[in-house]
């Protein structure tokens, strides 16, 4: 495990840069992580992020794209436009969650 400086904060991350302790996460960290991915966070992004964090807290895994759609009410199209080029992974990373393990 390594430590990574995000803005003025330091968080624990794995080799791929996913945070390993979801409790270290703050909205400012999310904004800084998003910037690294070239994403400027909006209210719509935070809607996804808050569902992801809530679902992770309840189930222990980052939700799949289908779950984000069915349980979170976030359409797949919106998800891809909010987090282009790898929505599930990028959204999990910015939400301070581990890399999603599912195949779908």
């Amino acid at each position: 495990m390594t430590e990574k400086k995000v803005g003025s904060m330091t968080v624990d991350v794995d080799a791929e840069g996913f945070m390993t302790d979801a409790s270290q996460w703050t909205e400012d960290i999310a904004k800084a992580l998003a910037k690294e991915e070239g994403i400027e966070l909006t209210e719509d992004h935070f809607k996804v992020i808050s569902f992801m964090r809530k679902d992770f807290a309840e189930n222990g895994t980052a939700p799949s794209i289908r779950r984000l759609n069915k349980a979170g009410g976030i359409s797949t199209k919106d998800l891809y436009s909010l987090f282009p080029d790898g929505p599930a992974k990028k959204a999990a990373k910015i939400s301070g969650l581990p890399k999603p393990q599912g195949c779908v």
Partner: protein
Amino acid sequence: MAESNKIKKVSIVISKGSFDGVYPGLIMANGARMEGIETTVFFTFFGLEAIMKKKADKIKVATVGNPAMHLPSLLGIIPGMSAFATHKMKKEMEKLDIPPVGEFIEMLSDAGAELYACKATVDMFHLTKVDFMPQVNDIINVATFYEKSAGAEIIFT
């Protein structure tokens, strides 16, 4: 991985109409979109059933001629056996959040994958555009398939 070594585009051919003929291609296509890879899926021969309005959600596991079922073919021919095996498998897949075929096609289209039906097969089976789900981009011939696959890794399933 170095950025230049990353796969940028895939073109997946789905040619079979059984459960295990359709799902791997769909999962690989969706997985590609999830990784930001440009994705085209070409449905041909019995694989066309995956994008047909009336057939997509009726795709079944073949219980005959499939050694990995560990079921003697003589039992596999019993009516209902294929439906039973399909039902069992669907239940397991639902747990993994793998959607039914029709929903999977919608999801792929929403994810930005392009879906095409093979013209030769469409003609052979006397089908038309109305037989297909609205997510299907077009009915194209092999030449167009290769044009659309320029620069892609072609995966045949």
